[in-house]
């Protein structure tokens, strides 16, 4: 597929806007009256429509248009916000989302999608409901307006449309026709003008679709002046002429006649688009509106005069909408435009969109720079020229800053990912018939974008799992003395070079005994084994394990948690479960902050160099003679009263050459576990660019990658979580590791 960059931007923007729309809608469910949220929803829909229009995605445009109509009603306060309405809007958002791909690929929509679209449009129209007045706006010019045939007191007599199609007219505010309301002054006839002549003239501009004559103002017989004019005309004109041309028809009668002209919907659309396309410098409301022919000069000056007069305190936009029948949507768009052009500068400097590939390239180069920098520093140290050493040191410091900034570019807050789950929780809780709320904390915690992209699916699984299995039914909860409303929580924070993401629920917790039985039944645990409760809980991450009694369509098919664990592990992360029966379960995911560059701590084993992520290093110490014995006999050392499991890397990696005279211990910590790693030499900190190992080495345990040292040598990066697991696994537990 050959997608041009503009389309990519369109797709990305659409998705973002739909997400925003969804979030605002969900927030609206809690605060139905919030005007800002409603505006945000409307803006999102409006922008989507505008951009889709630019690419000629007509189906998206027309669907979004229906949505927009409904939102407009909501904004005008003509419809109350209800949960059913919100559900409909959410589904409409989903529908737009599903239209993106086929539209971009220029494929026709599948019949299923089309059917769904039609159904949604019907629902939207039903919500709009009731007869909708012509888009002429509210009647503000006094009782005379009621002379329009449809509102006349002699309504029965007045239904005299040539092509009476009242049903069509009331069903939807979408019109193909210009609506022209003419309310003639009493002197028109005396001044030698006949209203009919305007109708004849209009007919030269297009097709008069319908015309209704209103005569409500006709006075009683005795008071009627035969030479005065009392009629009004309501005309629907099918014409491609613009507003100025139509207005010109009434130039001669302007002083004697109230003329209100409402453009057809597609003209409104065109005007909305034109407003979007205006250069940013266009600042004043009147300028914006006349630039897109939404208002003609005479109307504008009348409105401005009204605004200037002390008696009229309405803002210009309102005057135009109420007195000159400029569509409210157009004025809104123009006002928004006005605000945008004010904010445009500030916003421009706040956000730019960058191709992720460019960013990756930058980070790669920075990686090389870091390596080269370390090399230079090493050479400088070797040369021993103080000035050069100093210069190399300051160079390296700058390189470090560049590295941090470059990595920072990739960092995104996890909040956006978390927010997506509001919808999931809402939908799934309805599906399950449970009352569940989502609590989000630590949304501002940042992590690498590539990690964020890959964490969505595992989180989805965990959240669904928590809702389906973790949380009990409302009745069970109340019986257990808990609040009927359950909570699922998402939390994120930084902890020693990792980001920790917790998915918690306040449900029933894990039943250790049940898991144990199941594990034995599934052959995951020897019947004679005696594992700790924590070890038993971890079993739910084993392949083929599921405790759900009933298989629901959400989860419980036994292909859940092991997949989650695998995806987390491919991100060099770990997953563990904490649970207390009766009070809830928390799944703790620990992920590296970034996948590219770390601060490392280098150690030596014989001639080989190894790098540990500095974040996991707690302390280093020399391995004393007494400790040495303890290590070789028990595999534990005592550090200031704390007993730590120890792994001798020489043994672990099978290195026998050049046995060192002295050995050192690096105490590392990962999560809650501390352990000691026995190495020969401690070589200090360095910047490490992680290069993944080739597929060939993927089976290697205890190694997570490689890096190139300043000297050009290759050092292996130790997989600390993996090593710790090995130390732990050394304890006899009887768990059969699958």
């Amino acid at each position, binding site marked *: 597929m050959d997608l041009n960059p503009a389309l990519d931007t369109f797709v990305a923007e659409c998705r973002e806007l739909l997400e925003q729309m969804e979030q605002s809608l969900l927030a609206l469910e809690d605060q139905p009256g919030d005007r800002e949220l409603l505006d945000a929803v409307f803006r999102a829909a409006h922008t989507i429509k505008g951009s889709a229009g630019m690419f000629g995605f007509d189906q998206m445009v027309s669907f979004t248009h229906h949505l927009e109509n409904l939102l407009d009603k909501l904004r005008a306060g003509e419809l109350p916000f209800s949960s059913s309405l919100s559900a409909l809007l959410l589904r409409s958002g989903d529908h737009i989302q599903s239209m993106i791909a086929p539209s971009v690929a220029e494929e026709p929509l599948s019949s299923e999608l089309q059917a769904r679209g039609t159904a949604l449009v019907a629902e939207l129209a039903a919500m709009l409901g009731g007869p909708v007045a012509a888009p002429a706006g509210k009647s503000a010019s006094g009782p005379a307006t009621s002379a329009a045939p449809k509102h006349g007191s002699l309504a029965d007599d007045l239904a005299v449309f040539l092509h009476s199609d009242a049903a069509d007219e009331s069903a939807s505010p979408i019109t193909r026709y210009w609506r022209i309301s003419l309310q003639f002054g009493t002197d028109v006839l005396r001044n030698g003008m006949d209203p009919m002549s305007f109708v004849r003239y209009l007919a030269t501009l297009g097709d008069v679709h319908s015309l209704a004559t209103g*005569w409500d103002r006709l006075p009683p017989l005795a008071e009627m002046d035969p030479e005065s*004019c009392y009629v009004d005309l309501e005309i629907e004109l099918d014409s491609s002429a613009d507003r100025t041309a139509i207005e010109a028809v009434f130039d001669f009668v302007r002083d004697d006649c109230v003329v209100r002209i409402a453009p057809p919907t597609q003209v409104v659309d065109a005007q909305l688009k034109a407003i979007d396309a205006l250069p940013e410098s266009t600042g004043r409301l009147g300028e914006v509106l006349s630039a897109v022919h939404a208002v003609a000069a005479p109307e504008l000056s009348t409105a401005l005069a009204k605004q200037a007069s002390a008696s009229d305190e309405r803002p210009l936009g309102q005057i135009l909408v109420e007195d000159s029948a400029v569509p409210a949507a157009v004025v809104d768009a123009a006002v928004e435009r006005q605000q945008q052009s004010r904010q445009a500068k500030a916003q421009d400097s706040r956000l730019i969109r960058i191709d992720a590939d460019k960013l990756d390239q930058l980070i790669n180069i920075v990686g090389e720079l870091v390596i080269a920098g370390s090399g230079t520093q090493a050479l400088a140290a070797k040369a021993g020229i103080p000035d050069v050493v100093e210069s190399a040191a300051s160079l390296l410091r700058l390189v470090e800053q560049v590295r941090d900034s470059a990595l920072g570019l990739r960092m995104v807050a996890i909040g956006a990912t978390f927010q997506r789950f509001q919808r999931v929780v809402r939908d799934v809780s309805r599906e399950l018939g449970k009352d569940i709320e989502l609590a989000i904390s630590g949304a501002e915690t940042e992590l690498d974008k590539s990690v964020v992209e890959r964490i969505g699916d595992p989180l989805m699984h965990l959240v669904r799992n928590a809702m389906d299995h973790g949380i009990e039914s409302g009745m069970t909860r109340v019986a257990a003395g808990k609040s009927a409303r359950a909570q699922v929580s998402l939390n994120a924070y930084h902890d020693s070079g990792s980001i920790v993401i917790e998915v918690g629920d306040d449900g029933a917790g894990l039943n250790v005994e049940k898991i144990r039985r199941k594990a034995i039944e599934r052959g995951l645990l020897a019947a004679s084994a005696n594992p700790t409760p924590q070890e038993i809980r971890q079993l739910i991450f084993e392949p083929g394990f599921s405790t759900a009694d009933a298989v629901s369509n959400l989860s419980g098919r036994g292909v859940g948690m092991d997949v989650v664990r695998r995806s987390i592990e491919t991100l060099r992360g770990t997953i563990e479960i904490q649970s207390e029966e009766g009070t809830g379960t928390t799944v703790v995911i620990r992920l590296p902050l970034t996948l590219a560059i770390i601060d490392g701590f280098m150690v030596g084993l014989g001639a080989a160099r190894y790098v540990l992520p500095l974040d996991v290093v707690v302390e280093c110490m020399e391995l004393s003679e007494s400790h040495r014995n303890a290590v070789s006999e028990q595999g534990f050392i005592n550090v200031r009263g704390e007993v730590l499991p120890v792994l001798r890397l020489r043994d672990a990696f099978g290195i026998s050459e050049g046995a060192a005279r002295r050995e050192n211990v690096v105490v590392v910590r990962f999560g809650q576990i501390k352990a000691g790693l026995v190495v020969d030499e401690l070589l200090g900190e360095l910047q490490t660019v992680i290069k993944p190992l080739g597929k060939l080495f993927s089976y290697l345990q205890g190694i997570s990658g490689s890096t190139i040292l300043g000297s050009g040598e290759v050092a292996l990066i130790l997989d600390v979580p993996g090593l710790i697991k090995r130390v732990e696994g050394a304890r006899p537990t009887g768990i059969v590791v699958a």
Partner: protein
Amino acid sequence: MNITNLKLSGELNIYAAAETQQAVQQALLEGGSALSLDLSDVSELDTAGVQQLLLLHRECVHSGRPLRLAASSPAVDETLALLGLRKLFQA
């Protein structure tokens, strides 16, 4: 059945509006139980004239008397069609 016949002729425009209104008033005062309108000799009809017809129509409706357009002319037909009033004065 007491039917009042009203025949208007010539130019039903603003210049003749006062006369037309008198004729209409007259016809309404005659007190017939129905009205029959003959416009076959009308050569011109403008908005002022139409207003008179509308006045007649409204008064008839108010007093519950049927109004029938017994005969019309091309000029009348054209104007009533243009203003969407043909249904009101069905022959």
